[in-house]
């Protein structure tokens, strides 16, 4: 059992937790994730480690309510427990001194990108963050992003803050302005990462994306998380989750992510009915 020692709600339906998991905190590196289960009947859900503290033995997780399991997590409060937390899983991010790194994050992708920009800054890279969301209120963790970046470009689909449009557009503009960029990392919805990779491919900028394939065990045992990279089948839980964005078959990933959509819908509707209507945005 893994105790929740802190919780805050970053935006409607987006929660941040500090969870006691000393062994995970001890070994965690940027890019790693954990597999979490809420209850005895729950699914195994992969969540990127958004931060860790070796002294307190805690890790930070950011969860957006999208389906039954994440809504159930949303109802957990300080003092409650996650039933299972296993990790740190996956390959750690390769952090090298390259010069200028642009971190592009969409939606809640900003949480998993944070440890990376911290690490890039720590080894002396110039970090420019481009963070986007649908609208201003959904831009979360803004202080943290400001703190660990040398420059920040905010982007909103509705123009309520910063660049009016998608993060890929903001990146295109940045490149167009003559900014020299040595490496791009992109974390967020698949189509966003694909759009970023399409932009950087034209300019030959090495680009790493973090794939959120459906997983079961998270340890390379089931093959559910397989993705095609450069024509080869990879297991994203052990070979990734980060891959060369120019080589990922994004269409296949999107298709595979949708395989259980009908079942997910059933689970969500049942859960909402039990809970008495949709409350995911109540807080």
């Amino acid at each position, binding site marked *: 059992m893994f105790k929740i020692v802190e919780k805050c709600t970053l935006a409607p339906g987006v929660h941040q937790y500090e969870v006691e998991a000393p062994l995970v905190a001890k070994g965690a590196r940027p890019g790693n994730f954990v597999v979490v289960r809420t209850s005895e009947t729950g699914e195994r859900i992969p969540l990127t480690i958004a931060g860790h503290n070796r002294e307190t033995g805690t890790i930070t997780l950011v969860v957006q309510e999208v389906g039954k399991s994440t809504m159930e997590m949303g109802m957990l409060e300080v003092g409650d427990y996650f039933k299972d937390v296993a990790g740190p899983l996956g390959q750690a991010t390769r952090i090298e001194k390259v010069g200028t790194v642009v971190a592009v994050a969409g939606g809640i992708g900003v949480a998993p990108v944070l440890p990376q920009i911290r690490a890039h800054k720590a080894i002396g890279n110039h970090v420019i963050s481009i963070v986007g969301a649908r609208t201003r209120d959904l831009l979360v963790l803004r202080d943290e992003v400001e703190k660990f970046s040398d420059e920040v470009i905010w982007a909103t689909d509705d123009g309520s803050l910063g660049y009016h449009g998608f993060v890929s557009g903001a990146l295109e503009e940045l490149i167009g302005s003559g900014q020299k960029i040595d490496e791009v990392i992109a974390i967020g919805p698949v189509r966003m990462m694909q759009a970023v990779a399409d932009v950087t491919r034209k300019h030959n900028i090495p680009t790493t994306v973090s794939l959120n394939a459906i997983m079961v065990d998270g*340890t390379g045992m089931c093959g559910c998380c397989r993705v095609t990279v450069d024509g080869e089948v990879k297991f994203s839980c052990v070979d990734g989750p980060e891959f060369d964005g120019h080589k990922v078959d994004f269409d296949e990933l999107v298709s595979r992510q949708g395989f259980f959509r009908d079942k997910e819908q059933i689970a969500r509707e049942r859960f909402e009915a039990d809970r008495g209507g949709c409350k995911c945005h109540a807080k």
Partner: protein
Amino acid sequence: MSRKIVDRTEMPKQSPEARRTNFSEVALGLDPELARREAERCIQCKTRPCTTGCPVEVDIPEFVALIAEGKYDEAAAKIKEKNSLPAICGRVCPQESQCESLCTLGRKYEPVAIGALERFAADWASKRAVEKREACAGDVDSDLQCGCEQKVCELDSRGCAPTSDSAASAARVAVIGTGPAGLTCAADLALKGYKVDMFESLHDTGGVLRYGIPEFRLPKSIVDEEVEYVRSLGVRIFTNVVVGLTLDLREMLESGQYQAAFIATGAGLPYFLGIPGENLNGVYSANEFLTRVNLMKAYMFPQYDTPVNIGSKVAVVGAGNVAMDSARTSLRLGAEEVKIVYRRSRAEMPARLEEIENAEEEGVEMMLLANPVRIISDGCGKVSGMECIRMELGEPDASGRRRPVPVEGSEFILDVDTVIVAVGQGPNPLLTERTKGLELNRKGNIEVRDECGATSIPGVWAGGDIVTGAATVISAMGAGKRAARGIDEWIRSRF
């Protein structure tokens, strides 16, 4: 020869029509009367060939004789002297190629149903143990009498109490993986007096017994009971610990926390076919499919959150136990047609005979001498068919089996919407590749230096599927037992 000896007792089963629709155990077990009748068939021959067919050398004629005399508890205790998981082995061992294949009676008639008798004795004893436990539940005195933390009734029922001496009780051993190899090794070490900690990467114990073999063949309550027994010996079990990631094996030893370790991480890496279309929706590895259904209980969706999709026409590629389990699980989830697609012939099918029979009775079709070449998409990323090619058997290959060769121009398309790939598992590299100095063979299995499973790292043993490649429950248990012996001798010689 009397009829009594000639006719082997058949174990009652759920009817094929009934069991196709449920996940309850298929084989219902013998009752005492049937068990005695079957045990009396044993002619108690002097040569005892059956025992040499048993990888852990259970005293088969002795326990069978005890059943014939109606001494069922004693029969169970006799088996337990050599085999700590008889309720499991009685259900899943390939007896027809082990003990029963050598039975003297079997030369002229049907062999004694040794597996069924083993299961009977084990189930009898565990039912009695539960009754006893319930009878003395809350009886504090009985705890105190015992002089240790275990309940008296627990120890009685197993017929053994932990022995202890100072070399052993001072040492702590780490066992990695809670499958049959790990559980057996941990139990044996605990009985020798060692402090044992087990580490498991999943959230639950049992390895393949839990995530692979389905409920209808091995009820999980039996796995629970065996794990509880190991816990009752004082073994601590830590789940959610991926050794290699959460903890580092060498650090565990070098820090002095553990004096020795046993690696029993199984064959947890699914092989795929490497043909076009394998990433389409509707293609599962058997590991994924069975893990969803067994470990995550997707067959009880939506009470359990993990989903599984099954189409109406399923092809399972492969013909081992894993393939049979996948095929029979598909039927139970509601598939209308299920085919086993296998590139060799019936004689080479590696599954237990009983499971092949069960599968066929339930309506699984065997498509033999056929090999998939490509999986076809419906245009929206989902499986809509599988192209196969006919095979014929050529010259024997390295395994001694005749090599299947494709018949040119014989391609045909199978109308399926789900494909389950059950063509084997290899060693999962998470721990092995991150543990410095651990020697592996070409395939990635751990190299061992003696029959106890000593590895290239002093103080580290390995056994089960991680050493042999995917094999059997009983061979994994045998390896666990031998490793416990090796570890014991090593610790005694050093500490």
